[in-house]
């Protein structure tokens, strides 16, 4: 009886599959060109890239329910994403996580979006119409050879769709308990057959997170954003892209400000309503010589501003870069490029955070060259390259790398690499003064100063990596990466032997990290995909043996305990009948001793229904397993009186129309 039923079910499926295929067969070719393939479909050939690379596609982002970029980055195996409060995230890979994490290079459509202020990202102001993101490419490990300084532990590249691929009107909106309300409108049109454009506007209103006792942390915020993109093909081999965005945000936050007249804590708590705004414009010319040769010339201007109780900055950045790639003979593929960046800031000093000088202009010159050599065609590839950068703090930095990839069969690739990368000094590390008060005994506080130093050097990394990707069966693919990173000249806090209340930033830490990142995609059924991932990280730091003065002992444990040793996640994606999709994502994150954050499990779920070709609704639940839970804590800047905030369980609904 059971056998009979199974056979029956199987047969029905096959028959209907035939009608489905017949439907395809009867479609006009231009209709076929509009169809998208299921992302649950058979996986493509294994990537031969000699690096730990992952790509998060639009469909993955949509089905995860992510409403911002940090949430979308949780989809990448090996990434460490922790939400500190309503508007702040700590994002890193391979250790060293912090709200001011500084070892990632982050770009959006070729524009660098990490700030030279602290070499990290203000995640609250990053974003675009989520529906217009084509993909987010993430390279874990150093990508310095091509991309340059700061690409120490990873490169994140957010790539939006071309104007031609975002045609028509799209209106989306929704709301819930944490995401109180959000909406976006995008219109894409054609000027003539060679010129496509789009314009968009979005608005978000986020509720506050809570303190450990469940009370409101008073850090709700709003963000409004608008932008455009135009792509012009004057001839077949030339493409001109113009794009730009502008945004303004109003962010509530509780800051602890230094107040020498307020003993014993010397701190006054301020409920701040800060503003953050920015604007950018970018132009890019791509000229294609042949299918193996092209050049790109790109320039952009970027303005960012932030006005808070303890920090006020305006920054202008100009960037110009050129890249040329071509095949050299049969076996060599060469890419080289040149770049120049100017960044100029003006800081308004206050008693808590000040800069000396208050205004600074920095120049960055860079050049790179890389050759990909086919040692054995389509089987064994060697990539050699180096980046050369000149910055105003440490002068010339050379960052070479060698990568080897071996593809013995179509279904598997082995790769290994050695590279050197540096993290050049940030503006803050050179010239900041932070006034804080430290508790040394019950009810006894001491005001301390933490100062940057003109002698601060680049942090240096030598990275050894290896990986293996395979598709042992049609429905299963595996991706493994292992790394050993050796760091010297890491940032430390040096206590002044003559005055224990003074600390200066130094480079007296060194150490190593090693770890493994494993992920799999298993297509259980045509309609069901399961993706587990596991990340192991071990960080072992020590004071430099030849250090001139002993570093603040807390910093070794502090850095070691700020990234989880173990992370595990499993995602399930189902295409159900009647155009319903159902996605679940469970994640486990190990404890963070630095912030007294315990290990936790959390679960996100999304139920989507494509009602008609033009209309989709979805219900999303995030962080479903706890009323509220902590993921991270404040580091250099005192927010919430030094307390962690916790992320509440949340629900929201969305509706999306496309015309």
């Amino acid at each position, binding site marked *: 009886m059971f056998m009979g039923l199974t056979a029956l*079910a199987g047969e*029905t499926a096959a028959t209907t599959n035939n009608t489905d295929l017949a439907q395809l067969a009867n479609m006009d070719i231009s209709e076929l060109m509009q169809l998208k393939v299921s992302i649950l479909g058979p996986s493509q050939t294994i990537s031969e890239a000699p690096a730990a690379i992952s790509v998060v596609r639009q469909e993955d982002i949509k089905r995860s329910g992510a409403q911002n970029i940090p949430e979308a980055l949780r989809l990448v195996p090996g990434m460490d994403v922790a939400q500190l409060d309503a508007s702040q995230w700590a994002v890193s890979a391979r250790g060293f996580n912090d709200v001011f994490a500084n070892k990632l290079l982050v770009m959006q459509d070729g524009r660098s979006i990490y700030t030279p202020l602290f070499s990290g990202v203000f995640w609250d102001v990053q974003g675009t119409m989520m529906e217009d993101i084509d993909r987010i490419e993430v390279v874990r490990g150093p990508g310095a050879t091509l991309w340059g300084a700061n690409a120490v532990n990873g490169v994140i590249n957010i790539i939006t769709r071309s104007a031609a691929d975002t045609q028509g009107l799209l209106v989306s909106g929704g709301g819930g308990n944490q995401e109180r309300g959000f909406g976006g409108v995008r219109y894409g049109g054609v000027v003539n057959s060679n010129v496509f454009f789009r314009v968009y506007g979005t608005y978000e209103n986020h509720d506050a997170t809570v303190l450990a006792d469940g009370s409101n942390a008073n850090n709700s915020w709003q963000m409004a954003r608008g932008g455009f993109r135009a792509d012009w093909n004057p001839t077949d081999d030339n493409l001109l892209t113009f794009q730009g965005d502008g945004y303004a945000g109003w962010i509530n936050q509780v800051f602890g400000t230094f107040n020498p007249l307020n003993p014993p804590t010397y701190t006054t708590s301020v409920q701040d309503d800060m503003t953050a705004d920015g604007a950018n414009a970018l132009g890019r010319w791509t000229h294609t010589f042949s299918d193996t040769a092209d050049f790109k010339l790109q320039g952009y201007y970027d303005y960012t501003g932030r006005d808070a109780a303890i920090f006020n900055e305006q920054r202008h950045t100009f960037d110009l870069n050129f890249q040329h790639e071509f095949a050299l003979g049969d076996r060599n593929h060469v890419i080289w490029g040149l770049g120049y960046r100017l960044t100029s800031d003006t800081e308004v000093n206050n008693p808590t955070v000040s800069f000396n000088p208050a205004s600074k202009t920095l120049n960055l010159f860079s050049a790179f060259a890389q050759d990909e050599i086919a040692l054995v065609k389509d089987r064994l590839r060697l990539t050699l390259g180096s980046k050369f950068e000149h910055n105003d703090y440490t002068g010339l930095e050379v960052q070479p790398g060698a990568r080897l990839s071996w593809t013995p069969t179509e279904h598997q690739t082995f790769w290994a690499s050695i590279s050197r990368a540096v993290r050049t000094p940030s503006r803050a590390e050179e010239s900041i003064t932070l006034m804080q008060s430290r508790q040394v005994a019950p009810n006894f506080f001491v005001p301390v100063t933490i100062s940057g130093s003109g002698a601060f050097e680049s942090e240096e990394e030598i990275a050894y990596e290896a990986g293996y990707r395979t598709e042992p069966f049609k429905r299963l693919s595996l991706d493994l990466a292992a790394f050993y990173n050796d760091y010297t000249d890491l940032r430390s806090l040096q206590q002044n032997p003559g005055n224990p209340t003074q600390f200066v930033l130094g480079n007296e830490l060194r150490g190593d990290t090693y770890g493994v990142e494993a992920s799999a995609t298993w297509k259980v059924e045509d309609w069901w995909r399961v993706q587990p991932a596991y990340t192991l990280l071990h960080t072992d730091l020590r004071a430099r043996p030849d250090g001139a003065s002993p570093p603040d002992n807390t910093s070794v444990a502090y850095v070691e305990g700020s990234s989880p040793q173990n992370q595990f996640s499993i995602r399930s994606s189902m295409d159900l*009948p009647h155009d319903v999709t159902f996605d679940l994502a469970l994640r486990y994150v190990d404890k963070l001793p630095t912030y007294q954050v315990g290990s936790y499990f959390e679960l996100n779920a999304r139920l989507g229904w494509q009602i008609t070709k033009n209309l989709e609704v979805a219900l999303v639940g995030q962080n479903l397993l706890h009323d509220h839970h902590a993921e991270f804590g404040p580091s250099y800047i005192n927010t919430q009186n030094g307390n962690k905030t916790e992320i509440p369980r949340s629900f929201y609904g969305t509706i999306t129309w496309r015309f």
Partner: protein
Amino acid sequence: MNPNHQRHAERAPCLAGFARMQGPALFVFYLLLVLLAGRRTVQAQTGPPSEYQLKAAFLYNFGKFVEWPANAFTNDAAPLVIGLFGGDPFHGDLERLVANQNIRGHPVIVRQISSLSDSKGCHILFVNTPEPIQAAKITNALGNASILTVTENIDHFTESAFMISFVMKDDKVRFEINNEAARSSGLKISGKLLALALKPAK
């Protein structure tokens, strides 16, 4: 109830529940199973096609836009043959898709090609992810036979003698056309298809 089910029944309480079902409960359970089975098929119908299902539809469609020389068909009702060389990435979907279809009166059939000498009767030949050396061998072996050669993800497409190559772009299927190669083999590709193709780089 066979012994296998007994064993499951001891282990898993919910299966034990099914095992104990009888009469109307059993009927409802079977009805549910059939309904679920039926529903899965609805999904197959309305969900997006897989990459190779879509490529199969393109492959069949290409036939409508190509004019073969008169001697390519023995008569007006002779089949139009699509050959698959280097395995079947379509997993039988191409056969199912072209079943009962015809192009200008020629019924379309699919044939697996294990040796290139067998490809002579083909009108369209799909070569599954060729290696460059193999690609050269294939195009040499075919010579100027009037066969529309199709492949995918190939490096140096314009320098190869393949006529059409699939490219995935934003989860959509796109294709490039090497019209010179087609013309030198006596094939005439319609302007409409040429216009829809991605422009191969010079």
